[in-house]
């Protein structure tokens, strides 16, 4: 609780969220970050599920797009943290927000699982069912993260 209060009163946090240009920039970075993150992961997952970019191997495509997942994630995390910090005491008790963060963590875990295993799955000719299912879960987790993200202001009025 005290850390939340400290965060909320921190000079930098107050000022970056307090002026329109910087506060808007945080939002913009957050959107662009998650577009990149979810878009890249979605392409990889859709390919593993066998419904996208079939002219390329899943491994090659994953190699190409996966770095953008990390780039997007870093952008979303930094901007997200700075926005969260301005209302830290509110978010402390906000279960919808907590659930969003858990979904985000699970999303990263599943994206990494897909990336780590795509080479092995590719070698089997067609991607096995367990691979397609894992990719589907990965995609579903990110869509759920977005939903929980918009649910925070919609259901709890915060942010």
């Amino acid at each position, binding site marked *: 609780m005290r850390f939340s209060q400290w965060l909320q009163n921190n000079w930098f946090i107050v000022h970056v969220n307090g002026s329109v240009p910087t506060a*808007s920039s945080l939002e913009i970075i957050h959107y662009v970050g*998650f*577009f990149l993150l*979810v*878009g890249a992961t979605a392409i990889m997952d859709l390919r593993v599920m066998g419904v996208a970019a079939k002219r390329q191997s899943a491994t090659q495509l994953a190699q190409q797009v996966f*770095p953008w997942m990390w780039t997007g994630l870093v952008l979303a995390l930094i901007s997200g943290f700075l926005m969260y910090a301005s209302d830290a005491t509110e978010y402390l008790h906000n279960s919808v927000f907590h659930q969003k963060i858990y979904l985000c963590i699970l999303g990263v875990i599943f994206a990494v699982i897909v990336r780590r295993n795509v080479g092995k799955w590719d070698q089997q000719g067609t991607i096995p069912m367990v691979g397609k299912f894992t990719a589907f879960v990965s995609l579903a987790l990110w869509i759920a993260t*977005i939903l929980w993200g918009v649910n925070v202001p919609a259901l709890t009025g915060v942010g």
Partner: protein
Amino acid sequence: MHHFVIAFARWVQSTRLGVGILESTWAFPYVQLTHFTGLSLFVGTNLALDLRLMGIGKRSQTAAQLADSLFAWNWVGFAIGITGGFMLFSTAALTYVANPSFDIKLSMLIPAGLVLHIINQQKARTWGQTPETPGIAKLAGFIELLLWLSVVTAAVLIPYFAAEP
């Protein structure tokens, strides 16, 4: 033209779609979800291709190959995004058409972005044949990236330009 826009907005806002979303206790987040999921596919893949055209990113494939792989889902994303966008618009069409930020977003930035995007997608086939893209490709990718960033900016600024009722 202005009269037509207002009349159209008034009509859209009165449809069952617009009223229904606004009156429902749960629909609005799902409409936002549709818009953002579609945009993640569309803008996300646009950014990936633009950055690749600019020479940033892994070179295991050519930009032409990347453009080819992303093509179908890029436009599926656009369709989903525009569907969600129209549904959002329908909930408060009159306030949106009176909003300068929304106006610039929809009438200038998005058309410009789309035109350049289509050009880049087509030209990626020739520009992206080699691992290193030509200078013009780098410039085109960079401008498209700026355009999509400006679309997001205009969208984020919409609330700040809402007219007082």
